[in-house]
């Protein structure tokens, strides 16, 4: 049995971060019910919806949406309708956890904020996870994972001194926000399990990136100065960088952190033997980097990575996304699980990065289609009769096809 079997989660979140938080609970066996609506479907299905896009079933073909929503059930509820809001409260009444990442003000306007939902279920654990938290002068401000990285301090720790503050990723804050959200939920869930007490939680996705920049924040805190931006170099060891290898745009990360690694590298790369101890290498770093690059340029990055690693030297080929799918370590551990999904066919999905046996936790079900489990959740779980479901569908409260958003 999976560890969180018996826990029920209502996932009102959209995009990357919130759904990833709920997915970790689903991966560990919680029953996660994702709530969308036909008009306000998860924007990660697509943010430039047109009638043609809807007609092509493109809402069901987003790799991003499908990756972070596996192992979940999906219902549609128009929460702006009285019937939809009432059904959500009935779901919350039988749930343990609610996750949401709407902009501030949306749920209060719908009468569905924590104060209201806690009336339906005082023991519920509810997480709101806006970009900057639910309090403070920026509480209502909008953000993506990119915005969150911008505001986190990290860009001043990335890249070379002559660069502008630099980003690491198109949406670095999102995945970290998702992990932080899952951590928050489990922390409160453990308290609830022990005491029966539910509670409200929030997180700031921007603050979620602070631990990733701790090396810079702490140096600033104790010395009054920020660390220098050294590009790919290290202040304390060399060689340390990204070196060109054979082929177009092929590179190798190489980091020599200890004397032992240096000796192992010299056994493999005779041209480097003219360099001395760590101090000598730091003093002659330009010359050293040029010598390393002249040597690596003739090598295959993947082959060289394995040769160096077998000798104990930290090295890695600079992968592209296809390489990530083909990596031998991930393959040996069954990391990419192939799963059949309606509208897109067989797709790879990443299994959870923690496992309790040699085999990983399997992906039980692919991401749900819009409203796929309306009957199961609203009918079987809440006990609505078929005639009631038909009435809700006629009224547009539930459905299984996107509707062109008004005023998008």
């Amino acid at each position, binding site marked *: 049995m999976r560890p969180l079997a018996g826990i029920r989660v209502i996932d009102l979140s959209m995009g990357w971060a919130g759904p990833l938080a709920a997915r970790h609970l689903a991966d560990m066996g919680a029953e996660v019910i994702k709530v969308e609506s036909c008009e306000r479907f998860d924007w990660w299905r697509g943010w430039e919806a047109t009638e043609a896009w809807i007609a092509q079933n493109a809402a069901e073909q987003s790799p991003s949406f499908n990756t972070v929503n596996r192992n979940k059930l999906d219902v549609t509820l128009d929460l702006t309708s009285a019937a939809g809001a009432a059904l959500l409260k009935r779901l919350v009444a039988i749930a343990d956890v609610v996750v949401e990442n709407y902009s501030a003000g949306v749920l209060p306007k719908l009468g569905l904020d924590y104060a209201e939902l806690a009336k339906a279920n005082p023991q519920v654990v509810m997480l709101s996870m806006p970009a900057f938290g639910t309090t403070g002068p920026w509480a209502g401000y909008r953000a993506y994972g990119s915005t969150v990285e911008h505001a986190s301090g990290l860009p001043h720790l990335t890249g070379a001194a002559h660069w502008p503050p630099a980003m690491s990723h198109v949406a670095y804050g999102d995945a970290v926000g998702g992990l932080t959200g899952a951590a928050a939920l489990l922390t409160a869930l453990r308290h609830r399990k022990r005491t029966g007490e539910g509670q409200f939680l929030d997180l700031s996705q921007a603050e979620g990136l602070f631990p990733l920049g701790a090396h810079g924040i702490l140096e600033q805190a104790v010395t009054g100065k920020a660390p220098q931006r050294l590009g790919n170099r290290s202040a304390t060891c060399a060689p340390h960088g990204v070196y060109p290898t054979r082929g177009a745009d092929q590179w190798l990360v190489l980091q020599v952190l200890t004397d032992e690694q240096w000796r192992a590298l010299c056994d493999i790369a005779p041209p480097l033997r003219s360099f001395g101890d760590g101090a000598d290498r730091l003093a002659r770093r330009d010359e050293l980097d040029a010598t390393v690059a002249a040597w690596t340029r003739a090598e295959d990055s993947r082959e060289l990575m394995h040769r160096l690693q077998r000798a104990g030297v930290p090295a890695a080929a600079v992968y592209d996304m296809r*390489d990530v799918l083909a990596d031998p370590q991930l393959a040996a551990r069954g990391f990419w699980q192939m799963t059949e999904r309606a509208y897109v066919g067989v797709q790879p999905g990443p299994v959870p990065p923690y496992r309790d046996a040699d085999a990983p936790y399997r992906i039980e079900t692919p991401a749900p289609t819009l409203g796929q489990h309306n009957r199961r959740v609203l009918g079987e779980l809440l006990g609505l009769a078929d005639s009631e479901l038909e009435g809700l569908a006629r009224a547009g409260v539930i459905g299984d096809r996107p509707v062109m958003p008004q005023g998008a």
Partner: protein
Amino acid sequence: MTNSGSALGAQALAGLKVLDIGGTVGTAYCGKLFAAHGADVIDVEPPGGAATRALAPYFPPRSHRQSHARTPNDSVLHAYLSANKRSVALDIAHPAGRAAFVELVRDAAVVLDASVGPRSAFDDVFAVAPSVVVSRITWFGQTGPYRDYAGTDSVCHALIGMVRGIGPVEGPPALPSGYQAQIVGGLTAYIGTLGHVIGIELGNRVEPCVLDTSIFEANTCFTDVGAVAAFNTGTVAPRMGVNRFPPTFPLGIYPCRDGWIGVTALTPSQWAAFGALLDLGDLTARPEYQTTLGRLADAATLEPIIMQRVAERSAEEIFHRGQALRIPLALVPTMEQLFTVDQYVARAAFGEIVHPVHGAFKAPVTPFRLYRTPAPRDAVAPTLGQHTRACLAAVGVDARRFDDLRRANVVVEG
């Protein structure tokens, strides 16, 4: 929105005892989250100190007379990671030390470990604590051809495909700094570990539980959606330059009259509002600019215009006016500015950690808030071995045995 305090006055993880024998950034960050929410977390360190005690950044020397030789108490990174924990300096590779460790484990819920090896290495642990979760956090996991490879944060970032997208078109690609991959690994392991602790408390799990978290796999959270997209398209996006990442445009960090502004305009409505904010005029309405990919394709035309308009304005003005128009813009604070950003001050995002030798310093608090069972903002970091005697006495190691262990260099007192 707030709750009244817990009726029991307890923190969320009260009653959980966590032992960290890993001594890495990954195990320490995982343990830090347990400690922040009330678990009793004990770093069980070798007599010379955990590996994290040697990691930068460091406290500055306290006086000009102080020797430059660093001690195990001089890493501010370690102090941050060990806040709210206790330190036991105990050589668990020594049989007598291992025996004392097994006594410490008897009432533990979690053991955090960073080694690669057979599960049988924990047979003695499970013999006395059958429901403990042994959570092993390693670079590549316990199995597979890389299990003994030398991991680093940069190695992970290269292998998840992230490095390739950072930096100038001509290269070289750029490495993120610091310990980011390990922090993500520790955060991920916290999720898995606490999930399994809850599973045991729920009665869903009974057998000995050894959890295997791969820091490499944990970090694929940043690129897995891109890899699945590449599976479908068969193509990969090229590196497009500093601060340029598909599919979003405009996206970047631009110099203002006084500082920097972070820009993201993804949806049609955000693009329209952004155009209005910067007086881009007819450009905004062009049909080819109504999709993010259309704008990205012509970034060479659009970006200089955007940069010129941004440069004329102050960052604060663009930020607040833009946010009022529902555009996801951001200030881009430096390390120094970060501590005074009004939002972070309002949320008390930085607390104080007191180090017994070096005094108090500011550090980020846990980024999530539990309103009924809040984590304390301030904390104390232990010196090496500060709690060796007290922790071992609590599990029945009497004074005579302790002195024997000390004479054999199996324990060290801080």
